């Protein structure tokens, strides 16, 4: 007992330091975002694909929140993407809300509301049930949009969307520069919120539900409500992604609800990995790059190569690929530390922690 009393302050400091360190931005993360924002100047001719990548990344981030952190698999994120896309288009077309950022937040809220309502259907049952129910919801919405063509424009898409300048100042230009900067900033803000969420007690409780729902309930976690909450947030993020697409293209068509859109999202997360937030971002970059590169080489058969990449990823296994990247990371960290110690001989070397902080 005497020794225990002596140990406590050290242990308390250790616990506090560990918990603080857990959520710290690692150098790799900072480098990632510096590079992301540098892309505005680095690739001036590529704004359109960059913008699509940023939207896809945000959309994939929304799926990662439920799949990677709460273990909810979904083939219906397009439902939220689509409803917010149409909402953003309609309010811009009829001049109900003109300012894009306010409109974006409203569109996200509409998608979140739909997410909240449908969460009660989705949270029942197993993975397969969830896949089917989420898919069903997005198919139904797609068909409703098709049926009410007088409002949505039906198969021709929503025409005549006129998006006002952002904050009354920055117009969506033809080259897509402002559009890309806008999407990137929105992606960053949403990412920071998501990051905050996953490192909070709420985020920890989600991981516990994903890891062992039985035990989570047995330690007092209201499992159902936590899942409802994250599903709602995820729907909101997906909606913001959908509204960004409408705002930056001044157009919205029925394919926002398509199964392909939801399925692409799973591909992105299979490529990038789940449960560390960067999976959706990195996956989106790789997916868009591959799509662009391969479709330049073989415009007709690019999906063959995407398919091949997918099969290889799944067969080799991301675990093994992750192990390789750990080696690469360690090597990069070592080289970095050496270079650093040459510049500042006395400063302590910093290890390159993984973005997920493990």
């Amino acid at each position, binding site marked *: 007992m005497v020794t*225990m009393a002596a*140990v*406590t302050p050290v*242990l*308390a400091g250790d*616990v*506090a330091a*560990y*918990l*603080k360190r*857990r*959520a710290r931005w690692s150098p790799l993360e900072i480098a990632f975002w510096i590079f992301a924002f540098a892309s505005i100047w680095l690739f001036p001719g590529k704004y359109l694909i960059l913008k699509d990548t940023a939207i896809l990344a945000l959309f994939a981030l929304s799926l990662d929140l439920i799949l990677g952190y709460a273990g909810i698999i979904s083939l219906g994120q397009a439902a939220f993407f689509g409803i917010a896309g149409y909402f953003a288009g309609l309010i811009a077309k009829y001049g109900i809300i003109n300012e894009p950022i306010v409109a974006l937040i409203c569109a996200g809220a509409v998608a979140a509301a739909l997410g909240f309502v449908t969460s009660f259907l989705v949270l029942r049952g197993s993975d397969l049930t969830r896949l089917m129910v989420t898919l069903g919801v997005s198919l139904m919405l797609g068909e409703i949009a098709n049926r009410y063509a007088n409002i949505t424009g039906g198969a021709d898409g929503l025409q005549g969307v006129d998006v006002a300048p952002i904050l009354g100042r920055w117009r969506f230009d033809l080259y897509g520069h402002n559009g890309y900067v806008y999407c990137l900033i929105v992606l960053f803000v949403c990412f920071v919120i998501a990051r*905050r*969420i996953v*490192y*909070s*007690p*709420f*985020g*920890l*409780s989600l*991981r*516990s539900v994903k*890891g*062992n729902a*039985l*035990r*989570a*309930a*047995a*330690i*007092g*976690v*209201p*499992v159902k*409500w*936590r899942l409802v*909450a994250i599903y709602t947030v995820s729907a909101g993020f997906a909606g913001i992604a959908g509204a960004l697409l409408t705002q930056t293209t001044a157009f919205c068509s029925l394919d926002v609800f398509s199964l392909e859109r939801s399925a692409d999202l799973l591909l992105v997360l299979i490529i990038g990995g789940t449960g560390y937030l960067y999976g959706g971002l990195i996956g989106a970059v790789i997916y868009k790059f591959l799509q662009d590169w391969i479709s330049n080489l073989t415009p007709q058969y690019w999906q063959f190569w995407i398919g091949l990449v997918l099969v290889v990823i799944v067969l080799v296994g991301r675990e093994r690929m992750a192990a390789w990247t750990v080696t690469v990371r360690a090597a990069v960290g070592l080289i970095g530390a050496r270079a650093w110690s040459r510049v500042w001989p006395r400063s302590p070397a910093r290890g390159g922690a993984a973005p997920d902080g493990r």
Partner: protein
Amino acid sequence: MDRRAVPILETIGLEKRFGGILAAQNVNLSVKKGARHALIGPNGAGKTTVINLLTGVLKPTAGRIVLEGRDITDTAPHERVRLGMARTFQINQLFLDLTPLESIGLVVSERLGSGADWWRLVGTKSAVIDEIVEIVERFRLGDVMHERTAILPYGKQRLLEIALAFACRPRVLLLDEPAAGVPEAERHELLATIEALPAEVTVLLIEHDMDLVFSFADRISVLVNGALFVDGAPDEVARDPRVKAVYLGEELDA
């Protein structure tokens, strides 16, 4: 009136039917406040069914469960935890991807009402830190608290299993075969921690290991074929010829 005579947890005519099988029938269990109560019985006697009924994992076919005078028969499992009853599992139910520190931090955050807090980072409240530290020390998890739970030695996992339940600060703690499968070398540490549980926490222990039961319990209920068979002080139960006949036999003679 003796404070300890007040039942903190009671079941009245509890029954659970799985199709044609009666897994629990007319179970009237009364656990006194502060007791070290053991529930024993041969394999398949329905011990785990009773625990699952008490904690709300299963819904009873008939009967009532009363915790501190409040009927909790229809209360959700996580609500029962909030009302002061926590359990451990016979087979570890841990969060394998989290560290012991994160797992305990999670339980403490939930209990202190910041479980739904989505903006604050974990462990920025000093009250949470203090409690985490206390539990880490009590369950001797300090040296492994940063490891992933999946790679801990089995004995440490078993300790964490109890630590998570204890971190809920229950007034009634249900231990479902806490020593099951723990290798001899790690056993002592586990038993010492169970012995050292605070006296004000009522413990209902389900156990196969008769040494542990008789060294620990001040009251024993014997469950046979889903029904309460004998209920009394350890020496009464040990002497009871019916208990010897159906269950204890050799273990006591040895």
